[in-house]
């Protein structure tokens, strides 16, 4: 078969441009697949390893206060394996040179420095000395954000008392792979910290000697988390249990899981598009090659080559293109996968990243590409090899043309001869035209789907921070306080306006479904915190009844007018039934909302508030921060602007990465499809075009006929591309919907414009390349060769 292999190489070399374009499309598909799956698997393996090595707990139970001996009774709950009690507190920090509120979660570690569960990976420094009451270990993300090293110190308000803490170590914990403040939309490493302190000093500071307020357990093999949770809830109720929850609802774990889901979904969608496009292109190119080589196939058959070896010859051609594409794709996928892994490591703090590409991933990617490419091409190869040689040797009959629809409806007269040629040509092969349009439209779809998260996130942030939250700063109290605390805040210099809120942890129940969240009490006519109806119009909280986030309503299967059971997890823990007054739109989190005084009434607690939203004068901000740190009643403060800024800072790199990758990939598809269809029509029609040239048509007129068709196809394919892109976005958004967040399907005009622009630019580029060939059409040669 040596001579045939020479033919193979030369044929490939002749169509190198097209082969390369297809290679790139395949490479893009394989690359996205490898990148996404390998990143997901690497993170997954890393996570499991970290969890395993450092004893991540299975169930978490926060509570108010319980004596240490309760722990023994926890061990008796069937299904519980290991138990660890801890003291946890929220504190305010004062970081020198950083005049913004910093909140922290301060968590105890046993005096011997060795937690049984959620063990610390000490990156630098050492564990705390139990004899000292001012030593802490800080989380790595926070330390990095402020460039802290062991030996540095920071101020903290611990149970109302100012204290200087010395950092002795920097650590990571499986509990805080994603270190984020509860209720925040993204991790904020500058303004939120995790600190670990010895149990004795921390217990002393919070009057928890011989007591605890947080408990973690692991399950024995085969045990069900739900059973243990209800056992814990029963046991801890009289100790102010706030409702136990499993890993699935632990915030860091939860975010990781969602991230994996997202990677998995993307890995399902994008590569499929690329591989389908590549399959289509290969089909077009190979069937074209086969049909020009009909007579060669016939001659080979006449010499006694059997169908199989002829088939293999063309299959080799396909395989070569595919394999080169797969190889480039795997290489690029590993490279981008590592890049993506690094970006993720900024968010997710693991002691290490086990980047790995399972051979099965590479093999799967290769197999999928090969099979779809072969499926696309075998048909034409088979059709060619089944033809009796004598028949195959005859040239294909001239293509049949018809008058076009446009001409039939009487527009024929206004069309010039060249325009007529364009139209007839497109109509002659409706399937091919359609597939080409689909192919080009997929390129804008890919870009829209790739960049969509940016617009959606912009929109979410806009709704969350400009429509829903409008305060400059929110302040939470250590314990529910009376309205007097609000006046204290209002009196502060620089505070323009203040509004109270009440936040009550509770479990909402309807029928057999329940969800643990909080009910927010808001004042009538609230200006800084507004509820939004389904069309995002601000509405007032009703005087009676409860309002739910729309997604929470559908999760509970509850509708307006139904009675909701609210099981309060605070104070004297009343259980109340309230009618659902309506639903509101919220993209982040799930909550219930009630009128503040109505909530106070059902709680039988006078006029307690949990915190306040403030509107402040910019000038006095630093002063206000300082005052808040000094106020013992204040547990923490969050500045809205900082939150938005931080959000974009943390997301920026990832968003840029995805936008960039999506544009490159979309451009590749557009280029691949347009270039290939241009080259093929050039090959098919060079005779016709050369004849027209001989008849006296100018280069410009010829180009118009030829490129006009491409321009038409490209323009026509943009709107369906937008539609397909939006469809993909809807699918992705639906698939990723969860109680954490719902991604709205919002696609900005900029995204549409960029997608269209990339398609047009790549179409023009390939048009120019082909135009160059067109201008150098060798009239004599073209007309002499038989085809």
């Amino acid at each position, binding site marked *: 078969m040596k001579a045939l292999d020479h033919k193979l190489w030369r*044929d490939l070399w002749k169509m190198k441009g097209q082969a390369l374009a297809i290679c790139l499309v395949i490479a893009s598909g394989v690359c996205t697949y490898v990148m996404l799956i390998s990143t997901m698997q690497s993170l997954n393996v890393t996570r499991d390893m970290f969890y395993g090595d450092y004893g991540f707990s299975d169930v978490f139970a926060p509570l108010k206060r319980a004596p240490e001996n309760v722990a023994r009774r926890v061990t008796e709950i069937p299904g519980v394996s290991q138990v660890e009690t801890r003291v946890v507190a929220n504190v305010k920090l004062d970081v020198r040179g950083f005049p913004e509120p910093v909140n922290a979660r301060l968590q105890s570690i046993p005096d011997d420095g060795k937690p049984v569960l959620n063990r610390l990976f000490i990156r630098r420094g050492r564990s705390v000395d139990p004899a000292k009451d001012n030593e802490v270990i800080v989380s790595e993300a926070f330390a990095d954000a402020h460039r802290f090293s062991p030996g540095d110190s920071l101020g903290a308000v611990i149970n109302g008392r100012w204290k200087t803490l010395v950092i002795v170590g920097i650590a990571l914990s499986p509990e805080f792979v994603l270190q984020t403040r509860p209720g925040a939309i993204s991790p904020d490493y500058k303004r939120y910290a995790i600190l670990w302190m010895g149990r004795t000093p921390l217990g002393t500071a919070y009057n928890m000697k011989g007591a605890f307020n947080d408990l973690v357990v692991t399950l024995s093999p085969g045990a069900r988390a739900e059973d243990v949770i209800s056992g814990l809830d029963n046991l801890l109720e009289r100790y102010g249990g706030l409702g136990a929850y499993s890993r699935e609802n632990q915030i860091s774990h939860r975010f990781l899981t969602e991230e994996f889901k997202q990677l998995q979904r993307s890995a399902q969608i994008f590569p499929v598009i690329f591989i389908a496009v590549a399959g289509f292109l290969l089909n077009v190119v190979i069937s074209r090659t086969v049909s020009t080589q009909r007579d060669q196939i016939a001659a080979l058959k006449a010499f*006694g*080559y*059997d*169908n199989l070896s002829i088939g293999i010859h063309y299959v080799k051609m396909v395989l070569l293109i595919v394999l080169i594409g797969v190889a480039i794709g795997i290489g690029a996928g590993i490279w981008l996968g590592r890049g993506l892994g690094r970006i993720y490591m900024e968010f997710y703090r693991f002691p290490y990243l086990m980047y790995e590409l399972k051979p099965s991933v590479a093999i799967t990617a290769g197999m999928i590409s090969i099979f779809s490419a072969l499926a696309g091409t075998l048909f034409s190869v088979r059709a060619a090899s089944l033809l009796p040689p004598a028949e195959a040797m005859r040239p294909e009959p001239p293509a049949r043309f018809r008058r076009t629809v446009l001409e039939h409806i009487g527009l024929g007269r206004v069309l010039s001869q060249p325009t007529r040629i364009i139209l007839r040509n497109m109509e002659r092969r409706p399937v091919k035209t359609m597939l080409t349009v689909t192919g080009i439209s997929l390129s804008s779809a890919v870009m829209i789907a790739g960049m969509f998260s940016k617009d959606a996130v912009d929109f979410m942030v806009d709704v969350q921070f400009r429509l829903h939250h409008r305060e400059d700063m929110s302040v939470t109290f250590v314990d529910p306080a009376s309205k007097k605390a609000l006046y204290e805040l209002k009196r502060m210099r620089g505070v323009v306006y203040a509004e109270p809120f009440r936040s009550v942890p509770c479990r909402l129940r309807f029928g057999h479904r329940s969800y643990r969240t909080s009910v927010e009490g808001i004042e009538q006519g609230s200006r800084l915190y507004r509820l939004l109806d389904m069309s995002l119009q601000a509405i007032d909280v009703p005087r009676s009844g409860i309002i739910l986030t729309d997604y929470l309503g559908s999760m509970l299967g509850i509708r307006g007018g139904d009675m909701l059971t609210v099981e309060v997890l605070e104070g004297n823990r009343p259980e109340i039934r309230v009618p659902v007054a309506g639903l509101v739109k919220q993209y982040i989190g799930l909550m219930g909302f009630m009128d503040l005084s109505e909530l106070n009434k059902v709680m039988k607690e006078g006029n307690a508030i949990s915190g306040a939203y403030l509107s402040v004068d910019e000038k006095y901000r630093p002063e206000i921060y300082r005052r808040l740190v000094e106020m013992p009643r204040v547990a923490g403060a969050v500045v809205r602007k900082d939150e938005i800024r931080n959000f974009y800072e943390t997301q920026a790199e990832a968003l840029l990465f995805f936008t960039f990758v999506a544009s490159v990939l979309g451009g590749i598809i557009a280029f691949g499809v347009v270039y290939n269809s241009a080259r093929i029509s050039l090959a098919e029609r060079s005779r016709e075009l050369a004849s027209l040239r001989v008849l006296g048509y100018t280069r410009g007129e010829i180009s118009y006929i030829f490129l006009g068709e491409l321009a038409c196809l490209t323009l026509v394919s943009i709107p369906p591309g937008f539609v397909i892109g939006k469809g993909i976005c809807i699918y992705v958004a639906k698939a990723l919907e969860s109680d954490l967040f719902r991604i709205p399907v919002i696609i900005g005009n900029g995204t549409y414009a960029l997608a269209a622009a990339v398609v047009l630019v790549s179409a023009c580029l390939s048009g120019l390349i082909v135009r160059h060939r067109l201008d150098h059409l060798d009239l004599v040669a073209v007309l002499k060769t038989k085809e």
Partner: protein
Amino acid sequence: MDITRLQNDSSGPRIVFRTRCLTKVYEMGALKVHALRGIDLEFYAGELVVLLGPSGSGKSTLLNILGGLDTASGGQVTYLGKDLTRAGDRELTEYRRYHVGFVFQFYNLIPSLTAIENVAVVTEIANKPMKPEDALAVVGLADRQDHFPSQLSGGEQQRVAIARAISKNPDVLLCDEPTGALDSATGVVVLEALERVNRELGTTTVIITHNVDIAGMADRVVHLSNGLVTTIHKNTSRKSPADLHW
């Protein structure tokens, strides 16, 4: 199909091909073209037959069917007693691979292969082929072996096609207008090559031509017209190609 190599037989010349009531109808939609209307012919071992006839008379069609490139619509063709009309695709492939050398009317060289590679394509799968260089030397193209078809003239391409056909030392050589594109001098070179293969190796040879003069080198001349055999003429003595002029 197990076809043993042609042997000498004492009971008269052996029949290589026999056709009985051979018909071929091309259906083009409603239109039917009767290319062959019932051909009864024998071709004997080692003989050189020239097929003559006007354009469209069915010469190529007959040759294609003999060579296993096309299937008959009716009647029967046997090769050494084996029925080609009933042979399957695999048997026909094997038949073409090991027994037939074909020269196409339109050369059908593979454009992406050089002259020598075009010959090698055939010799690589044959049983006891010549060396491709030797086959090219026979047609006088030894010095052009690394040229691509596009770099060869029509006549040179045709000679490559002939080298390709004889290179596998076939049992039968079927040539569709092998000198169609050649001037008389080159034509003679080509015909000499064919004649030598026929004479020295005893290869049964069928040559289609429009050129009545070439008929002089044949053992027998078969005239076709409108899908039927009109006359069969037997030459008492074969002329050497060198003595032919046109």
